[in-house]
């Protein structure tokens, strides 16, 4: 084809060979096929194990649930062999402990996350991050011991003070003690939902903090500097840039913490004195949670009692699953696009 001065297009020649579109299917050799099969099998195994948990709990629990029906959620006593059992009391206890824990843990975790990201000197940052990670790995029984043998005796004064002056607020009253009697015993303030909640708060705070810190640290530097360049104070910059950007992480981290708080067993079990009535007063002795109910009663001999425990476990399982699903969805959405391909 020669290029001439006139802008005449060269004639399009008919194709000599009738070309077919190439198939772009990747071809795998034997080792690749084996690898893919093994990898897929491991994924399937993990999926099977995880779904079997729900299935087996449901199968074992079906006896008790069909026997109790809807009263399983409204009865507060736990006498499975007498047919009178339900999780009303333990469910309320679980939710109250988790609420106390979240109320205390979230402000603390947020303060630590903001401190690490915004205020801490650069030299200290890595140490603090490691410290928070380490705290998330501390066994729950260590927190439980601390709560039962140290915190318990330090907090009764505070609990009594709150009950005396704020007893009119719902959940904060104490029925079995007269707050105006200075000689009344302080044992009514021990082993309470409040103390268990404080301990669980310390347990979940590192986890919540780790997620919040991660999200805060991903705030785009340009917007951060833009706010500062416009004359914002540090707090103004945090409020206008860091917090709105990290909202998803804050909500998701809080919910992941909530999931952990709902399922906590041993620390709660060491501290509370278990009761099987609905105990709405968080400062008063006696509380319970689904997890500690299972740990307390797993030794029961009859098949039916075990089935009732499985039903309680199933409720706990579904509750934490829903919370975790929601949490990881929110966190994943807030992180979308933050990861980079190298």
């Amino acid at each position, binding site marked *: 084809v020669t290029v001439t001065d006139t802008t005449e297009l060269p004639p399009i020649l008919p194709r000599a060979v009738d070309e077919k579109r190439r198939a772009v299917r990747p071809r795998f050799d034997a080792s690749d096929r084996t690898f893919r099969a093994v990898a897929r099998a491991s994924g399937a195994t*993990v999926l099977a194990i995880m779904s079997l*948990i729900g299935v*087996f709990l449901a199968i074992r629990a079906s006896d008790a649930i069909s026997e109790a029906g809807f009263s399983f959620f409204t009865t507060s006593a736990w006498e499975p062999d007498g047919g009178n059992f339900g999780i009303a009391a333990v469910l309320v206890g679980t939710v109250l402990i988790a609420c106390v824990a979240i109320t205390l843990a979230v402000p603390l975790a947020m303060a*630590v996350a903001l401190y690490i990201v915004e205020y801490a000197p650069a030299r200290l940052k890595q140490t603090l991050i490691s410290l928070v990670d380490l705290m998330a*790995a501390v066994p729950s*029984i260590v927190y439980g*011991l601390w709560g039962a043998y140290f915190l318990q005796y330090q907090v009764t004064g505070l609990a009594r003070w709150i009950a005396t002056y704020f007893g009119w607020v719902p959940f904060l009253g104490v029925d079995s003690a007269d707050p105006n009697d200075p000689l009344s015993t302080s044992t009514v303030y021990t082993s309470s939902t409040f103390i268990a909640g404080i301990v669980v708060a310390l347990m979940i705070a590192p986890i919540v903090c780790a997620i919040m810190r991660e999200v805060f640290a991903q705030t785009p530097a340009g917007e951060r500097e833009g706010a500062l360049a416009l004359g914002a104070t540090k*707090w103004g910059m945090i409020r206008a840039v860091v917090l709105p950007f990290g909202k998803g992480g804050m909500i998701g981290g809080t919910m992941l913490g909530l999931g952990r708080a709902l399922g906590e067993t041993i620390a709660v079990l060491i501290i509370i004195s278990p009761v099987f009535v609905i105990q709405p007063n968080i400062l008063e002795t006696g509380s319970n949670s689904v997890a500690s109910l299972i740990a307390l009663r797993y030794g029961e001999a009859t098949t039916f009692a075990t089935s009732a425990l499985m039903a309680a476990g199933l409720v*706990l399982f579904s509750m934490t699953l829903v919370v975790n699903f929601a949490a*990881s969805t929110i966190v994943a959405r807030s992180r979308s696009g933050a990861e980079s391909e190298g």
Partner: protein
Amino acid sequence: MTTQTTMPEAAQDAQVGTRASASAGSTVTVPPVPVDARTESRRSTATLRATDFYAIVGALFASLSLTALLFTVVLPFNGRLGFIVVTYVCFLVSYALLVSFDEPGPVVRDRLVAVVVHSLAALMLAALVFVVVYTLVRGVEAMRNLNFFLEDMSSTGPLDPLTQGGIAHGIVGTLIMITIALVITVPLGITCAVFLSEIPGRFSRLVRTIAEAMTALPSIVAGLFIYATFILILGFDKSGLAAALAISVMMLPIIIRSADVVLRLVPGNLKEASLATGAGQWRTVWHVILPTARSGLATSVILGTARGIGETSPVLLTAGFTAAMNTNPTSGPMVSLPLIVFDFVRSPEPAQIARAFGAAATLMALVLILFVIARLIGGRGPGQLTARGRKRRAAQSRRDVERFESRAAVAAAPVSTVPGAGPIRPLEP
């Protein structure tokens, strides 16, 4: 004095003025500014000023003395906690007042938030450190006796002194259980994580969602699951193996999730380079992805291990309880350290409580050691090498060069000159 080197602002203004007038085209002459008319002092760029320091110290003194006055003379208050809380509130108020004397509203709010963030962070970090230190300190009493680590509790009652009995059976049990759990979870977990990152699709997305939701599976539910299947349905006895299975169920999602995060951080161009040189998927995974992510994978396994050895409730449901040493995981009850702590602490005897703290401190020490190891080998991004690794890589590369050169020499011997067969330069490590 270095101030002479910087151009004084007035001189700069003058230059700008000259340029502006020049561009305007008029002939207004600007009077020359004498450069050394005034000596400048270097500006301080520190964010902390002396007045900030005075405000904090002043507010601290004011709040302390005000609270002391309130507690001793004016109000019928007492108690250490109350004193601290009232002092803190007084401090915030007086600090805000002091700052507001010479700063506008937004700055006052900024200062207050800074104080609150610092104090809450300090409170929480102190509380967390205190939990660990308290356990270690109270554990010293039992750990001072060497028999605590060498004997079991089979011939020791709760009333016996600390010079008898120990937690050797718990230490051995913990190690056996965690070993079995690691044998199960490490291959399965890491293969599954590789599956999630290397074979994307609808199925792997489903597996990832489920595994992520299971990371916060209540540990007691894991125990209950093994209790329902392994012990009640399959009819095995409570044993160390059952406990190890329960711990595996709990650890598996944790390891999968953190390994998945690490594998996703492997740079995509490394993978593509490997595929472009003709390696298959399996070779890419084995020779590129896994070595690149090695330190991160080790960290994720170790952190999963730390979580696994500290769990009490799965072991409580599945391991049974014994006071004697049992090294056979398949038969007879076996205990772990957290389970021993839980059992000791149910006794009111001071010696048992001391043993409980000793066992908890031992457990804590194990977790600390694991954590330090994880930080030592991990904490680097994928592909980042230690000094030793870099040296090893350089030596390897040098050997490769020698090999290539010797091969090139052999190839060049019969044929006189091969164009472009010069020595291959070593890769920069």
